[in-house]
């Protein structure tokens, strides 16, 4: 029965391993404020996860360079502990627990996507850890009564209803026929709810209402239906993969539709990857570099975009911009609270009312940002085939006029 000895040795080995790995770095060590974040570095959200991480990193460097955070007469620098949540909610919840109870993190930054934020929020809430998140837009996040969750972005149901309203206005105020396809995830389903609301409000009819799988690489079935019934508006939402798949297959199948409204065009670098094929696509965005908001750290959108491009080699999608803004919100709240007490920092966050290069930030009771409208841009290409995203709505920031209806493929 010596085998049992081996098992005993084995159990004690685990015990030793666990006990030696209990290293706790507190949230504020020396002159460092350590924030925790679980980010999708691998898995289906990995490209957006990296946009998020780049946004965080850029803001951390900038704030640190410009003098850090001043609390109680002392200067502190930001630092972030990252883990990879593998785009998996189960992993994300575990990591939040780990960041808080093992790494001793007392302030958190959000992950990428609503689903993952939904998994993390109960954990941060339980421990009373303030979390400023920049990438969880699902409306249900803000109706659960969370006290420690703050989102710098507008809720998901507002993403595309501007598009529907625009379509209705262009149709002389009469309802339009909508075809829609949404990925089976928390964010896209919320965008769908927004469209349903908008359709009801404007008397529009939904004639195709499809669900797309999570591993999204084909939506030909939906597009075949679209070709057959000829709706006025086609709405597609499914993160980066959804946008890429839609454009690829619409071009392949030469689907003619007067208006194509989507999300995540900039994160998918549509205009770069698909060039002229992506022309006329209408995209909901939390932010665009041409907006005229200002702050002391990044100056304005154009400067931010230029600095970002210098660092990472691509034009910043809004996911990066809002992530950078999250750090500005934290800095502002720490300085106003003038302490690292979690409750007081939470109260300071709740009282946030500021302008950043990304937009105005002011939190409602539920934690969502109510002071920042969504913008719509359209992919527009010049004759040389160089494509750019131009803001077309709301009119206050529009830098180009909406092209409607989209010319037929045969005329392009």
């Amino acid at each position, binding site marked *: 029965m010596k085998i049992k000895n081996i098992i005993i040795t084995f159990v004690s080995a685990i015990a030793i391993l666990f006990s030696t790995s209990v290293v706790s770095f507190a949230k504020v060590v020396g002159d460092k404020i350590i924030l925790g974040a679980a980010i999708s*570095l691998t898995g289906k959200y990995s490209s957006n996860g990296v946009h998020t991480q780049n946004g965080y990193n850029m803001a951390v460097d900038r704030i640190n360079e410009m003098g850090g955070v001043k609390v109680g007469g002392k200067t502190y620098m930001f630092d972030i502990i990252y883990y*990879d949540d593998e785009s998996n*909610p189960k992993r994300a919840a575990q990591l939040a627990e*780990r960041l808080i109870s093992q790494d001793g993190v007392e302030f958190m930054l959000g992950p990428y996507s609503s689903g993952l934020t*939904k*998994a993390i929020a*109960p954990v941060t809430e339980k421990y009373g850890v303030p979390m400023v998140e920049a990438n969880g837009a699902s409306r*249900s996040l803000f109706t*659960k009564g969370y006290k420690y969750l703050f989102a710098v972005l507008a809720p998901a149901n507002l993403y595309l209803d501007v598009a529907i309203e625009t379509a209705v206005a262009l149709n002389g105020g009469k309802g339009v026929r909508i075809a829609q396809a949404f990925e*089976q995830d928390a964010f896209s389903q919320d965008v769908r709810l927004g469209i349903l609301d908008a359709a009801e409000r404007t008397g529009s009819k939904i004639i195709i209402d499809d669900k797309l799988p999570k591993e999204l690489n084909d939506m030909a079935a939906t597009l075949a239906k679209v070709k057959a019934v000829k709706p006025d508006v086609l709405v597609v939402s499914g993160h980066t993969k959804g946008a890429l798949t839609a454009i690829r297959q619409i071009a392949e199948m030469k689907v003619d539709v007067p208006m194509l409204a989507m999300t995540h065009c900039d994160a998918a670098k549509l205009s770069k990857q698909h060039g002229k094929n992506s022309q006329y696509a209408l995209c909901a965005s939390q932010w665009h570099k041409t907006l005229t908001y200002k702050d002391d750290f990044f100056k304005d959108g154009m400067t931010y975009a230029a600095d970002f491009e210098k660092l990472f080699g691509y034009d910043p999608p809004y996911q990066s911009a809002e992530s950078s803004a999250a750090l500005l919100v934290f800095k502002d709240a720490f300085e106003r609270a003038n302490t690292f007490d979690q409750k007081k920092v939470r109260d300071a966050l709740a009282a946030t009312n500021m302008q950043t290069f990304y937009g105005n930030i002011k939190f409602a009771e539920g934690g969502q940002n109510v002071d920042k409208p969504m913008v719509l841009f359209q992919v527009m290409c010049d004759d040389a085939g160089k494509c750019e995203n131009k803001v077309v709505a709301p009119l206050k920031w529009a830098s180009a006029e909406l092209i409607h209806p989209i010319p037929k493929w045969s005329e392009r």
Partner: protein
Amino acid sequence: MNKNIILYGAILIFGIAAPFIFPAFKVQLSILCILIILAITWNVQGGEMGYNTFGNILFYGLGMYLCASVQVGMFFPLGEWTEGGGEKTFVHTPAQFFQGFAVGLAVAAVVPAIIAGLIGYSILGLRGHYFAICTLGLGVAAGEISGGIEIIGAGQGFTTPPFPNVDRLEARGEFFYFCSFIVLVLTFLAVKAIYSTRFKLVLNAIRDNEDKAEAMGIQTMKYKIIGWMISAFFCGLAGGIMGGLVGYIDSTDVAFDGREMGVFMVLMAILGGKGTLWGPVIGATLFHIFKEGFWTFFLGWQYVALGVLIVVIVIYFPEGIMGWLREKYPERFGEVVDEADRKAQVTLK
């Protein structure tokens, strides 16, 4: 037998004391218990019966959804709870939470077992690769179907009831740890008890040569179905607890997570040594420790590291750790070895 009692006592005491010795690791320890349960139950089919199933994830996911649905549905309208926007917020009182969870777990255990019986009746006639591929489809199909059912949240996911506000911050972690630990102990004892009866011999006979077993007059179908139902029972329980622990159920990423959990349970059993009682336990423990380690030290490369580990396992420990030990120290497994014969074999090599 004395040594046995000491060993089990030691493990039991360690299990009970663990969350207090390592308070920061409660969640990892709970997940470890769940992983061990999944590995042990997979081993009943994959190891003892020789039916490599990828379908056990179905029962795990079912258990998860059922437990949460019952827990909510007993006190509030389920449809309103999961409704897309989540406009309405209901709060469970502590009594409601625990009652709901207990009933939920019971349902999460029984229903998957019944379903295993029904499915088993129709597909356990398949053998070898055909069975494996068929069960692979089960998990995938379940994930897609549940992602379309509005009442359990569909693509939005299902937020399980938050743990009630009791004064202690540690209560939630301890509650779920002890739930999973108790279920682990029950699973282990149940499987150990089964393995000491004729049942195990029948399963082994099916593995070694099903036709001969049938020719011997054994109703193999009956045993296969019962074996699968037992696995489903405990998989369902594990799923129910995991749902509460994670707090958020997503159809393909958390519940019917065939890509991760579904594959991990196979890996763990193989790593430890399939067809043994302790193999899955050791395999799951080592696997969990490796995984957590890779996660911390190879950020972004953890799957590469895990892949290397799997390759190493397959090359150097094809029979798992228990198999390797058995080959090295056969006498410790109660096998009688003729020393001269062994030496002769060794020199031959």
